[in-house]
């Protein structure tokens, strides 16, 4: 049974100014994501991929169509769908440990178990020894690790990632992508990753949805059977990268 079911979702925003023609962001998007699948949504900015993620997160509602998780329609944000944001969204007044503990407190998990889970997740993302530090004392890559630990600690059903590594420099981005593979192989989750980076989608995904813009639509749905870790110079990886580049380029020309 599919885990996340997006069916015939259309989203438009009210137009600004005098002409109140609604601006379409997504048009009739349907797809299904399986349990524990790492699914990337790939596309240029303006293709509605972030809108789609926001709707799965429960922050926005579709104009038409439905999004279901385990057969239940999404109406609100919920801890079963945690989000990793591009700019980390750590609470600056909380230490690393307090940030990770926040969701557990909201779930009313008893103190001892909370401490245990915080420790486990700090270790999972390789941040041992930084428990008492504040976010402004950490590098971008470390902040994103905290954010990953915080999102995983509440044990969500689905992990949503919104351009999670886009704010990092190239070197950090590569190592964080490899880290993500390692973490995900230890803590299997259904992941929906939104990205504009072909590279990132290729390194991480079981499945890649390519989107076109104006309005947003799913153009291609690719299953990626390659074993991890994936090497840049592997001919199959190169072929996949080229295929994706062509798909995105085509959609550019059409738009």
């Amino acid at each position, binding site marked *: 049974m599919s885990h996340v079911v997006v069916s015939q979702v259309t989203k438009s925003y009210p137009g600004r100014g005098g002409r109140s023609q609604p601006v379409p962001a997504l048009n009739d998007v349907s797809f299904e994501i399986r349990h524990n699948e790492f699914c990337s949504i790939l596309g240029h900015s303006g293709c509605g991929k972030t809108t789609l993620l926001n709707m799965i997160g*429960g*922050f926005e509602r579709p104009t038409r169509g439905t999004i279901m998780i385990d057969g239940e329609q999404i109406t609100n*944000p919920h*801890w079963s*769908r945690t989000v990793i944001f591009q700019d980390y*969204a750590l609470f*600056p007044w909380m230490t690393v440990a307090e940030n990770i503990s926040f969701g557990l407190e909201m779930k009313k998990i008893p103190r001892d178990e909370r401490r245990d889970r915080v420790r486990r997740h700090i270790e999972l993302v390789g941040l041992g020894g930084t428990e008492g530090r*504040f976010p402004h004392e950490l590098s971008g890559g470390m902040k994103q690790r905290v954010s990953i630990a*915080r999102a995983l600690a*509440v044990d969500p059903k689905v992990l949503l990632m919104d351009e999670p590594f886009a704010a990092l420099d190239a070197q950090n981005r590569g190592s964080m992508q490899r880290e993500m593979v390692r973490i995900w192989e230890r803590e299997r989750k259904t992941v929906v990753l939104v990205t504009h980076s072909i590279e990132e989608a290729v390194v991480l995904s079981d499945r890649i949805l390519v989107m076109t813009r104006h309005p947003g639509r799913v153009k291609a749905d690719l299953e990626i059977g390659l074993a991890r870790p994936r090497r840049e110079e592997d001919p199959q990886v190169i072929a996949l990268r080229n295929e994706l580049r062509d798909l995105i380029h085509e959609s550019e020309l059409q738009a």
Partner: protein
Amino acid sequence: MSAIGDEVSSLRFGQPLRGFACRCRPYVFLLALLGLWQWASTFVLDDSERLLLPTPTAVVEAGWELMISGDLFRHTWDSLRREMVAFCWATVAIPVGIAMAWWRPVEEQLGTVLELLRPIPPLAWIPLSMLWLGIGDTQNQFIIFLGMVFPILVNTVSSVKQIDPVLIRAARSLGASELKVLLRIVVNAALPQIVTGIRIGLGVGWMALVAAELVGATSGLGFLINDARTVLRTDYIIVGMAAIGVIGLLLDALIRVAMARMMPWYQGAK
């Protein structure tokens, strides 16, 4: 060998001396002004004129007198107490400001009223408040309250509106209820600017306090300087003015220290 010895000794004795000289530098002009003042009122002014501008040394003497007699302490304490009581009342602006920024209908209704009241200077309330509340603590505190409440309110509202919406989303997706979002996220994220509002509020309140005491009190630093005017004790007036300035400065410094203590995360966070 001796050259090294010289260097060591110059390090040992020269460094602190140089450091001391550096720390003194910002005060050079101030001291020159005080010297000029001393010289002018001693040698330029005649006796009757000196009554209007006593020398700095005479002011220091008068300050010592007022300290020994306990008058300075008593008036300062009365003023500070009024400032603090009014501040306690003015903190109501924090929850009200958060509510205004968070719930649109609250801002719609309260905003209209407050925008009408805000441009009225606190001092313009003095005549009416004297008729309502008489002369004394309550009237003074009312005026100070008016001076404090708007800066705190305005800063609270804008601080809550400036919170990065991504923080709110993060909290909600981690399972925080509306109440938890308000108490755990909004209050904390807004705190630095709320404290800025408190600093401004305490400053404005302190100014309003002195004005209120000039006309509507029988104690306090404002009363002290106005009372000294009636008996032509300009030295007392200047002592009172200096005390008002120094205490204003100390209040602000106190808040800044408290802020650094309470919000270690804020240093360099933004």
